[in-house]
Structure formats: C-alpha cells, structure tokens
C-alpha cells in the first residue's frame, strides 16, 4: 500500500500489506497473519527444491542489479565442505530508495522468514543482516523481532546476527559489505572469485536484498506459477515491486505494483501528480545511479527491468526521484555527483579522481565560470569512468551526468553563457 498514504486500487499489496500496522511487527501478530507458515513448509523441503521454486517464479534481485535470485542461490556449492553464509543487504543508501527501511520497520518478521528460507536453500547456518548505521529505528525493530523469533524457537539451528554499518554507501556493494562484516574498510573486491566460491570469511556466501527475501515466503506459500503470473508487460519481470517515490510529487511514499506498471500512472494517479501549477520535467526511475529520463520518456516508461532498458535507463532499486519544472537540473546533477565523490572508496583512480573532478567542474559551471568545452570534458571524463573500475560506483556517477547533459544541455549552456545567474560561489 502507498505508505504513508491510503492504499490505491491499482496497487498490488503483497510485501506492503501490513505497512503502518504496529501489531504486524510483533511475533504474535505476525504469526496471526500467516507468518512463518512458509518457513515451516520450507523445513519439509530439500534445499534444492526451495531454490527450484524461486528459480521458477522468476524472482529477480530487488537491490538494483536484477539478477535472478534462484540462479544466484544455485551457484552455492551443493556438497557442503565449508561453512556457508547468507548476508542480507539492508544497507539501503541509494538516493531515492527507502523501501527496505519500511519493510524492516513494519514487517521485520517477513524479512527474518525470508532470510531463514534462503539460509536453508543455500545451506547456511549463519546469516548476517547488514543494516546501515543511520537506520536506528529499523535496527531496534529488527533486534526486537529477532529476540522474539529466537525465544519462540522458530530459528531452529540457524543463527541470524545484525551487523550495523557506520556510514558508507559503498558497503551496499556486496563485496564491500563482506569486507565490512569482516571488520575491514568497505573496499569492494575484484571479482572473480565470486561470493558463492569465496565470500565472507573466505567461505561460500550469498548476498540478497531485503525486498528480495521478503518476497520469498509469498512465493513458497502461493507457488511459483502464481508469482510468475504477476507480470503486466515482459514475462522476464515477474511479481510485485515496491517503488519509493520522492521529490516533486504530491504524495511521496512507497507504492507496490505489479511489474510492468506504467510509470505515468504511478506518478499521476498513485502519487497524486505534481504539485499545483507544476509540470513534470524529469524522472530517475531506479535510484540515483541510473540515467535520467525526460518527461516524454518517463510518461512512456513501463516499470520492469526490460521496460526501463527500452527507455535507456534501468529499474535499479525502484527509487523514483521526480523533478518538476522548478528543478535546476544542473544543480541537482552536481548534488548527485557530490554524493558519489563523497562516497567513493577511492581505490580506483577513475572513480576517486573522476567523481571529484566531475563535481568540481559542475560547481565551476554553477558559479558562472564554466566554458562550453567543459561539457565535452564532462562527457569524456564520464566515458573514462564507465566500465573501468572494480565496482560500479564510478559508472553510477557518470550515468546522471551523461544523460543530464544529453537531455538538459541548454540548462548547462545557460550558466556557461551567463544567461542564468550563478548559484554558487567559486
């Protein structure tokens, strides 16, 4: 449902059904709502059978990459020779995204249940839920839920621990997260080796996003075919997805819709449209790391993995950032570049230097001291930042810059040519 707003008839509330209901947070309340039934069912199934159901459902990773979840689980060694681990990615830090926060705040047991099922599927005895340091409230709620579930004896022989981050966006990258759990700086690792072979503590590991795991109990209880049938456009994108909508809409919040739902309807109907007297200018549909769409592209975009690619962007994490005609795109793109410059782990030259210089050049333009050649320089810089580093943070900085210059070039030129008053001091 459109938390914190009333549910909308066009939503399909699966994960968000109990958002806003404090009773669902408790073990008792959750059990009353059918909680842990799927976990009971999973305990009667062979690990490979659980993986097969998830594979068949078409569930794909909700953290951003969209990798098929069942396939990821199947990469874990079948014959167990070493301890296996599950890491739950609750480091939600992608600008525009705030769905995992809501899952943990309202339905902590849904996450625990999905985590337990995944642990059985990959034969892991220990799971770490990595929660970003700033999420003080979700952490406390998860801690309480974990204590209740442990007391109720639902964990069986499994152990789940919460691990608190300490302010580093990059720790949402799976290999950086594993380093952070190990007590290291959150530097991403070179792949291969992949986590399923050499993960946290050097052991076979799977990393899944909160929303992905929260969907798993539903799939187990209602079947792969039922889940797979939820698809409005491309059959490769199945199920429901939580979209966190923020920025210039009347009703920002989390909305859960079936894959393939039109972005236009999400913005203009579910979110109540733009503020009075304003029109849509741009939209970033999948968190700040994906290319920006202009109005026309946004209004023709279908929200699934393929629909977003068709418009030259990505579904990402489903963090929808909306800009109306009052937004200064140059300033906002600078803010995004500054974010990446701040969050770069600084291992790779292209990223460490590239994100910093991209920010400096954008600041120079905003201070009225830019040159027309700066736009080509930014594009050249972005090209050198794409596909050349250990992780994709550098690419993520380039995406809004390249798409922004391409789609809103005149706004940059206005600052450079002195047609617009500088908004920054050099």
């Amino acid at each position, binding site marked *: 449902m459109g938390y*914190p707003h009333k549910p909308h008839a066009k939503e399909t509330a699966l994960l968000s059904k109990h958002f806003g209901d404090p009773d669902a947070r408790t073990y008792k309340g959750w059990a009353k709502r059918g909680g842990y039934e799927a976990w009971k069912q999973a305990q009667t199934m062979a690990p490979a059978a659980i993986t097969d159901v998830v594979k068949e459902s078409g569930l794909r990773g909700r953290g951003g990459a969209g990798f098929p979840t069942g396939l990821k689980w199947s990469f874990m060694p079948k014959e167990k020779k070493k*301890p296996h681990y599950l890491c739950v990615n609750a480091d*939600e*830090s*992608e*600008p*525009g*995204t*705030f769905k995992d*926060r809501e899952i943990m705040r309202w339905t902590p047991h849904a996450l625990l249940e999905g985590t337990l099922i995944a642990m059985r599927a990959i034969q892991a005895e220990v799971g770490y839920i990595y929660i*970003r*340091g*700033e*999420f*003080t*409230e979700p952490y406390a709620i998860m801690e309480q839920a974990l204590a209740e579930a442990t007391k109720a004896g639902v964990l069986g022989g499994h*152990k789940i*621990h919460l*691990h*608190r*981050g*300490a*302010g*580093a*966006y990059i720790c949402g990258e799976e290999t950086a997260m594993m380093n*952070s*759990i*190990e*007590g*290291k*700086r*959150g530097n991403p690792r070179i792949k291969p080796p992949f986590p399923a072979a050499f993960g946290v*503590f050097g052991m076979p590991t799977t990393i899944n996003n909160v929303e992905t795991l929260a969907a798993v109990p539903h799939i187990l209880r209602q079947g792969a075919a039922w889940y797979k049938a939820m698809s409005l456009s491309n059959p490769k994108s199945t199920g429901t997805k939580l979209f*966190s*909508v*923020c*920025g*210039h809409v009347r009703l*920002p*919040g*989390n909305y859960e819709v079936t894959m393939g739902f039109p972005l236009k309807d999400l913005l203009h109907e579910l979110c109540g449209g733009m503020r009075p007297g304003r029109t849509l200018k741009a939209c970033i549909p999948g968190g*700040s790391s994906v290319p920006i769409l202009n109005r026309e592209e946004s209004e023709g975009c279908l929200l699934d993995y393929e629909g977003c690619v068709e418009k030259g962007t990505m579904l990402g994490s489903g*963090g929808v*950032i909306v*800009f109306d005609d009052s*937004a200064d795109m140059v*300033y*906002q793109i600078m*803010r*995004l570049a*500054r*974010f990446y410059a*701040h*969050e770069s*782990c600084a291992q790779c030259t292209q990223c460490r230097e590239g994100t910093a210089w991209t920010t400096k050049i954008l600041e120079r333009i905003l201070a009225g001291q830019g040159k027309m050649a700066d736009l080509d320089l930014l594009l050249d810089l972005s090209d050198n930042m794409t596909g050349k580093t250990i992780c994709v943070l550098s690419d993520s900085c380039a995406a809004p810059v390249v798409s922004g210059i391409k789609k809103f070039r005149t706004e940059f030129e206005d600052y450079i040519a002195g047609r617009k008053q500088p908004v920054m001091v050099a």
Partner: protein
Amino acid sequence: MSAVETQEYAPVFTGKTLERLQEILTRYPTKQAALLPALWLVQGERGWISDRNMVEVGEVLGLTPAYVKGVVTFYTMYHQHPVGANFVQVCTTSPCNICGAEDVVKALLAHTGAKELGATSPDGQWTVIEVECLGACGFATPVLVNDDFVESVTPERVPELVRKYK
C-alpha cells in the same frame, strides 16, 4: 590531567561493556569482525573515538592501532573528535535538496547556535552536519538527532525540534 583527559585514558572495555563485547565476539568466526561493533561500543560510551581508544580496541581484538585507525577513518559515522551533546545530521542529497533541505540546514544552524557546519555551538550542546542520503527520501527532509530519526522536517518545524533537545 584534566577531567576530559582522564576519561580519555580510562579503558572502555571493563564491566558491562566488556561483557557486551564478549557476547558480540561469539557472532563471528574472527576477532577482527567485531571491530565495527566494538567501535560503536566505544562511541556509545565516550561520544567519540580517541586515538587512545583506538589503541585499546586494537589490543582487545588483536589488531594494530594503525589498522584500527584505517577503519575508523573509512566510516563517516565514527567521530574522531568530540562533538556537541546533540549531534544533528541533515540529509541534503538531491531528493531532499529539491524539497528544501538546504533551508532546513540554515534554520538548524541559526536556532542551535552552531552557526557553521561541523562546528560545535559555544555552549557545547550542538553540532550540525550535512550528510548524504539518509534513506528516507519520501519523508524530506529527514534529520538524525543523536539516535532519533526525525522525518519531514521543515524550517518551520526546526524551533520546536531544537526546543525538545534543550
């Protein structure tokens, strides 16, 4: 030694805090993995993490002081200097920015008397900093006051918020 220095040199991992660390150590196959939680314990006890504390953490976990410092400096939430009694983090990344986050920052600096980002108010009560995305973009502007996550802060709501912590 001043009172502040005496506290700085007193060990953190004794009594209950040591017990908590020992429980944390059971969660991981290595001692090193308890580093982030151990640093949180130090900051919880002392409000910040001094060089002396880093040495102690290193001793407890079998790590060198330089290694511990390397980790502390990577994560922005660990304070390497004392901060105000109330530590305020305001999100100013793009989604909050377009909803007026920079005006919230201005109002906070004015009403707390901190005046300048990162500086502590003369009465030692307030430090205000801008942070990147707090992960609550639909509730612009989110502000973290110590461990309290406050949603939908506007410049108009700032005086009331500041009063609450005075």
